[in-house]
């Protein structure tokens, strides 16, 4: 059998041995459950997901607009200052084509996790989600995408209220980013972004 060590003597255990009680086993199924408090930042974020929009927090000290939102700025070590509604469009920062499922099944059609830099949030600020309605071969870093929301009555205040992000048709990778930027300071910076 491939992969079996050749330097070990003995008899391999087969599943039939386990079923017929030929080897000693013990079984324990833990019942471990949590109900995590969302607190302020996550709570508001989820509430807005249910409303069908993305919300971020701004730090007035470093001027970053952070998503997912947080009540503290990890760079300035101070409180963040304001809620900012951002767009539900963005740019693929990085992605993977995942051919093995979470329970280790081989997939013919890959899952496509991606970090999406959200329009209106600061550079490098994005949310981790999945891409859909796109051929795996067509996915590119820098691709413009938009959120595909579940119908309002199906939304529960969860990251999965966005079904997936899909490419914005007719938009070249990383094109027209300046037009999406709501803040002047950020709009200037976005020039360098084009060449990334």
């Amino acid at each position, binding site marked *: 059998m491939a992969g079996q060590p050749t330097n070990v003597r003995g008899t391999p255990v087969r599943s039939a041995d386990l079923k017929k009680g030929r080897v000693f086993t*013990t079984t*324990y199924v*833990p*019942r*471990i*459950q*949590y*109900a*995590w*408090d*969302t*607190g*302020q*930042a*996550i709570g508001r974020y989820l509430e807005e997901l249910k409303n069908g929009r993305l919300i971020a927090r701004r730090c007035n000290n470093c001027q970053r607009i952070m998503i997912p939102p*947080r*009540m*503290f700025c*990890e*760079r300035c*070590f101070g409180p963040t200052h304001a809620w900012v509604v951002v767009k539900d469009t963005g740019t693929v920062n990085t992605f993977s084509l995942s051919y093995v499922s979470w329970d280790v099944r081989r997939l013919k059609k890959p899952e496509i996790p991606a970090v999406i830099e959200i329009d209106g949030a600061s550079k490098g600020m994005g949310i981790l989600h999945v891409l859909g309605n796109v051929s795996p071969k067509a996915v590119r870093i820098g691709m413009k995408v938009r959120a595909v929301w579940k119908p309002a009555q199906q939304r529960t205040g969860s990251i999965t209220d966005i079904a997936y992000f899909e490419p914005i048709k007719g938009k070249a990778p990383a094109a027209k980013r300046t037009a999406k930027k709501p803040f002047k300071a950020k709009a200037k910076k976005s020039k360098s972004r084009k060449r990334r």
Partner: protein
Amino acid sequence: MNGRVGIIGIGYTAAQPTTPYSSFKELMFEAAQRAYFDAGIDAAEVESFVTCAEDLNTGLSIFDEYTPDQLGAVQKPMHTLTQDGLHGIADAVMQIKSGLVEVVAVEAHSKASNILTPDWILDYAVDPIFNRPLGFNPHALAGLEMNLFLHETGITPQQVSQVAAKNRTNALRNPLAAYPARLTADDTAAGPYAHYPLRETEMAQTADGCVVVVLASDDKARAAASQPLWVRGIGFANDSPTLESRDWVHAEYTRIAAQMAYRMAGITNPAREIDFFEVDDTYAYKELQHLIALGLYPNRPGEAGRALEQGLTRPDGKTPVNVSGGCLGLGWTLEASGLYRIVELVLQLRGQAGPRQLPGAKMGLAQSWRGVPTTSGAVAILSSEQKPWE
């Protein structure tokens, strides 16, 4: 640089049965901000960070990955101990004494209210082959220990009930406490048995909360905004945890930890030299067992019960114990329990303990235990005065 280490700042939230308005990160951020403000420093001045957390209590694997942002620890040395917070204090003391860094922040918190199946998590801590298949609630291990402890020491169930009443009542003077109640020993003795001879009223209830403690080298401590408290002694130890053959009577882990701390502090008669004690009382009998292990009653362990009856361990007694309310009154805050003991020591030694202030307190001892089924403990001795010969 000499080897002295001072506590220069503390930050904390009140212990509360639930804290739905804050995520664990927001709770930690609040405590950290308070601690750095108290110390008169910026987060940027903290050179190293220690957090104390058990993954299964947080519901997150590799919990150290979830801590830097809200402590100001991004791109800094940091690690998480799966220990009580007092072990974190010992860790920080070693980092500073070794000369590695000069300012360390230690954090521990509890979001016990978020754990929906606490007894199952406790069950996960007992041996899967020998013990778990038997199927009884793991808190019964405390019942096993208490039974032999009473049998061997002559301490009575009434005295244990009195510990619970004392600590719940002490908590009335502590605004941080989650479970203050004006109770008598008769009240607590009327509670139903949870795990005979242990009554429900003698088991601490969990609470949420967070504590951050900032420690610093001698030079940094002298320049701090608040009065520094000196870590005069620190110790930690484990006994054999095997349930089938462990010592149920003596808290050896605490005796050994205390010996380490006494040796470091040069203490030979703890009862006389230390002004007050904050010790683990997750189960009421543990307060007495731990005091015995700390060497307060060297002649006969049964004296622990008599001293209690005579009121010697009350706030107005000769040897006040758990003036804060302990885990019974303040709440059992999981890994943060040892740090809430430190908070009480610091407040008392600074003279900031308000209505429960002990007059003239100059030296205090904090002791922690990791809870059933462990034999893991730590001891810290703090003083407002440095050792004269240092």
